[in-house]
């Protein structure tokens, strides 16, 4: 748990303009009250079951395991959740909270568009207006999700500043919030940003880990030896890690975007290669230059293309509880192919990073051991990028 001001050790906090402070304090109070209220908890639970399709299955990937010739690989199927990724867990929770707080306008940032779609979905269901900020580069490479959001009635605002990706979308969402703070709910999509977002988003995503722990116990009679998840801002990873953190027998691996390779400088490996700093409201690791200017991240997956990372991951790294590794674009594409051909499951490019590392890890482990892999989303949205790649013959 973070401290009262939202610090995870030396990380986290609320580094925002004063204009937003009262909104953040109000949000924290409202969230704490909602979390205690049986009506809120029941409603969320019902929605997660009847609307989002939870619990999502835990699947033993026999052919993937065979390929690794090592530990048994189990897949937590967040790709089967409504809207195609884990993002719905958080948007349902925060959407209900926004309604409780009487907010009729919701804004969000999105990278791959998965959080944008999940937000637009919940807003459509709840009948509130929705605006999504998305970098122009991401609008281009995730065009399918942009179309989905528009069909759901959301307004998608392309952001043309900076690297035109997730970082810049978040800048613009913060500018909107600072301007419209009195009537607007900022539905942040990751375990990043100012307190209470990292804690709140983690709590809403922890349903992944709670289900997986229970399902795993039933399947294997214990806990997995290792848990693997991809990390951009870090919400799906925090979601599956959280219930396992107190169990020292479970190793936790976060997989960052290696982009064109760590040596190329074009990557999103914030925890592996970044330095401590402050961006988007919290202190954490950042990709930055010697003068404290933020660097552009690079990844084939828009969702991991972010120069920051959630503060709790920084804390898990610093304390040694979790290990952070990276997988590059080419390895992620190979893993996409492997899961497609061997299991008939097409993962999102973000999740493909976790698949790639799960294979590497399982190969090094004994056959009696187990790996739990969080498949955070499905790959439909990436068909455009994959077509471009295949046509280019890579």
């Amino acid at each position: 748990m973070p401290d009262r001001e939202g610090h995870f050790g030396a990380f986290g906090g609320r580094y925002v303009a004063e204009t937003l402070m009262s909104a953040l304090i109000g949000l924290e109070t409202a969230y704490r009250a909602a979390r205690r209220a049986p009506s809120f908890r029941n409603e969320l639970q019902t929605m997660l079951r009847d609307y989002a399709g939870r619990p999502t299955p835990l699947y033993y990937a026999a052919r993937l395991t065979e390929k690794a010739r090592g530990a048994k690989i189990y897949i937590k199927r967040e790709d089967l959740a409504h809207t195609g990724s884990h993002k719905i867990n958080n948007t349902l929770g925060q959407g209900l909270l926004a309604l409780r707080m009487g907010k009729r306008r919701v804004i969000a940032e999105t990278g791959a568009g998965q959080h944008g779609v999940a937000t637009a979905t919940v807003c459509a269901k709840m009948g509130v207006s929705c605006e999504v900020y998305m970098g122009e580069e991401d609008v281009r490479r995730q065009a399918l999700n942009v179309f989905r959001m528009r069909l759901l009635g959301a307004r998608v605002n392309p952001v043309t500043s900076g690297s035109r990706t997730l970082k810049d979308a978040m800048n613009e969402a913060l500018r909107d919030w600072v301007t419209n703070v009195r009537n607007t709910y900022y539905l942040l999509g990751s375990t990043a940003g100012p307190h209470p977002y990292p804690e709140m988003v983690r709590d809403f995503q922890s349903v992944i880990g709670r289900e997986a722990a229970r399902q795993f116990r039933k399947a294997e009679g214990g806990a997995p030896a290792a848990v693997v998840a991809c990390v951009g801002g870090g919400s799906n990873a925090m979601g599956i890690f959280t219930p396992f953190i107190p169990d020292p027998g479970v190793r936790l691996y976060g997989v960052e975007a290696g982009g064109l390779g760590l040596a190329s400088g074009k990557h999103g490996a914030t925890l592996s290669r970044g330095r401590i700093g402050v961006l988007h409201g919290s202190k954490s690791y950042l990709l930055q230059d010697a003068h404290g200017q933020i660097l552009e991240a690079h990844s084939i997956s828009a969702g991991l293309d972010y120069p920051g990372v959630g503060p709790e991951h920084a804390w898990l790294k610093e304390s040694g509880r979790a290990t952070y590794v990276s997988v590059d674009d080419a390895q992620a594409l190979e893993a996409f192919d492997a899961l497609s051909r061997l299991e008939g499951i097409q993962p999102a490019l973000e999740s493909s990073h976790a698949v790639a590392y799960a294979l590497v890890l399982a190969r090094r482990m004994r056959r009696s051991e187990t790996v739990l892999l969080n498949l955070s989303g499905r790959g439909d949205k990436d068909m455009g990028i994959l077509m471009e790649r295949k046509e280019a013959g890579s």
Partner: protein
Amino acid sequence: MTAIDAAFRRLRAERQKGLVVYLTAGDPTPAASLSYLRAAADAGADLVEVGVPFSDPTADGPTIEAASRRALSAGMSVARSLELVRAFRKTHRTPVVLFGYYNPFFRYGIPGLCADARSAGVDGFLVVDLPLEETGEAVPAMRSAGLDWIPLVAPTTGAKRVRAIQRAGSGFLYLISVTGVTGVRETLPRGMAAWARDVRETARLPVAVGFGISSPEMARKATRHADAAVVGSACVKIVERNGRAPRGPAELSRFVTSLKSAMR
């Protein structure tokens, strides 16, 4: 007593309202930026706010965001911003507030920053994303170096919080006139006057109003219930229009003169 305290004391004694001019350090080049700063001070700015550019200025509107980009392309950094202040200090005694986002300051290293800022001639810091709750790391260091930490209050800040914020700061209290980002606006927001009056009645520090103030008329109105007005984006627009051309500082000088005379 810091130079900022002295400036407000003098203004009060002369029954004058203060003018704070904001310019982005190194926009469009370090040399041109120095000419603009000097022009503003010569034309009567009582304080200058020197903005250290940041790649992700989330509290700023398009004008200052573009200025930050120009300055960064010209190679501006915290260290070079301090050099700029040092050069300005050779010719001018006008108090200087270093404005910025926390990350470049944090990366520079807070203890070293305070020492170097002091020796360069900086009088205070205004860090836009460092609210009261996060001041523990930097503000005591600033204070012990004899530098003011200028606190900000917004229209969304409750009365109790305004008091707590004031107690933690020194120099002056920066009153953000609108819920929003920086940028030129046509009119002052409704309700601003009443709010500024309320804050000022209980204020321990002089009050400066900023965000959106773009014309002599607005500066005059804004300081009816405040001790000073901050004019930023409107000045930056003059830099944007003129760049390195010598007519730029002359135009800024005329604008600053018109602001000052309207506030008299």
